[in-house]
């Protein structure tokens, strides 16, 4: 039977993957994300090297990241660079996960698509575009996926507060208008003191 089995001892660590990437791409500024509570090994890669790094990680037999687990966006308003696109890679041959991140500026956030490397990225990138308005250049079909096509705005951005969306059906409440979002009032309250 043609099943994939894992040879004993053929384990890959994310540290090894990082080392191979540094050797393979000496020109690309790779950065490991700092922080004690960053629980997965995370590398911040430049957007213009993303596709070649991903192709290398997929094709190199020692890496063999055959599955792109998911792609998602994060909005770090008011930090600059504001957006991040997160790629969770999975090597089923070596039982290893690796996280890649691309930082994107507030103005015109765009990143090349990896749907040519892993076709599964197609929908994940559409979802990220749908939620954050991040452009994936070269994507075959970059349209809204979960929200209606005519939706205006990027709902998961932090300056798009909850509860102030345009109401789709107003035939029975014609007087209903959409108030201006008061960001300060709507943002989740920060608690000043800590429990420990």
């Amino acid at each position, binding site marked *: 039977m043609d099943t994939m089995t894992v040879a004993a001892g053929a384990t890959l660590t994310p540290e090894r993957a990082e080392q191979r990437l540094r050797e393979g791409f000496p020109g690309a500024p790779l950065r490991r994300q700092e922080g004690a509570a960053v*629980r*997965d090994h995370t590398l911040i890669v430049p957007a213009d090297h993303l596709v070649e790094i991903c192709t290398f990680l997929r094709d190199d037999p020692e890496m063999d990241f055959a599955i792109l*687990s998911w792609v998602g966006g*994060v909005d770090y308003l008011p930090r600059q660079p504001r957006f991040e696109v997160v790629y*969770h890679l999975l090597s089923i041959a070596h039982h290893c*996960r690796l996280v890649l991140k691309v930082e994107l500026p507030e103005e015109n956030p765009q990143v090349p698509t990896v749907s040519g490397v892993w076709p*599964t990225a197609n929908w*994940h990138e559409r979802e990220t575009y749908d939620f954050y308005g991040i452009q994936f250049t070269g994507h075959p079909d970059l349209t809204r*996926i979960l929200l209606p096509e005519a939706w205006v705005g990027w709902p998961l951005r932090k300056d798009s507060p909850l509860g102030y969306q345009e109401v789709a059906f107003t035939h029975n409440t014609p007087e209903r208008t959409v108030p201006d979002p008061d960001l300060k009032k709507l943002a*989740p309250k920060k608690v000043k003191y800590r429990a420990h």
Partner: protein
Amino acid sequence: MTLNMGPQHPSTHGVLRVVLELDGETVVKAKPIIGYLHTGMEKQAEYKTYTQSIPQTDRMDYLAPMSNNLALCLAAEKLLDIEAPARVQAIRVLLTELTRISAHCVWLGTHALDIGAMTVFFYCFREREKVLSIYDMVCGARMTASYFRVGGLASDIPLGLLDKCETFVDEMPAHTDEYEALLTKNPIWLARTREVAPLSRRDALALGATGPTLRGSGVKWDLRKDLPYCGYDTYDFEVPVGQNGDAYDRYQVRVQEIRQATRIAKQAIERIRAMGEQGEYRLRDYKYVLPAKEEVKTSMEALIHHFKIVAHGFFPPVGEAYAAIEAPKGELGFYFVSDGTPRPWRMKVRSPSFVNLQTLPTMVEGRLVADVITAIGSLDIVLGEIDR
């Protein structure tokens, strides 16, 4: 001809819409259109504490609420760097395996119903009902369980639960034989599923399929075995794998998974018995987990912790974590970004149905329109989880 299928169509298992371009009876192009059930759960989670998001997850894959609860709790526990006690782990394993049985029962019943075998549906729902009554006994709800908490469980399991589970687990193999007697060698079933909706190993990997969809295509990958959580590496079970990647292989994989799930559940029951029918059901780390009610009544410290966790929620460190489990449908994962406040800065759900549905065009293009129904059924999708 362009044919619109859904979103109100009984065989799309919810509100899936597929636009089919047909040439006679052959599908030239299929385009799934989703989003009809989108409720913005990821956005809402940013306005809730971690614990408040647990009831939301019940509504994602509403056929496997306990699995969703578990994935969220494990991600939060990874972020906090805590681990639930061994007894809690065993209870979680028991309940999620029962969930797997019930989710697969619903899948088998509806999938067979789509293809025209009605009897199986009644048999499967008979067993699912028993799992739902176990849920009812555990947490008072039949479908929206919300039973797991970060660091433990909402309450201890009731007395008599293990007996009830054991009776169910003991009779389940015989019921699985009944399903198999109806289908496995049934010529109509074979004609409708063999070599129908095939997915090659290569395509399955490229499209990111997980769970029985990936295993049906011959890839032996199960997070319970390969990246274990909740102590699954200490349980004795096998991972069924298909060969051809057709609808029949996915059927075989899921039916065998029901058998393996009963095996795991049986072992979990023994372990819980060994650790006591009543006992520790929460981590005693009161920064993150509510103290027991009895302690709140006698200890000032516990009262303060209780009040603070109820009023604010717990404060995770600044950081991020992703944890995934093998849900009945595949890899279900939660990704949290924390800014140090009791509410997540970002919650991302990696739902298996969303990714698995992407394989649909590959399965049906160039094949008959009637096989689209088989393909959707054999993918085992739940739209609540796809649209979130």
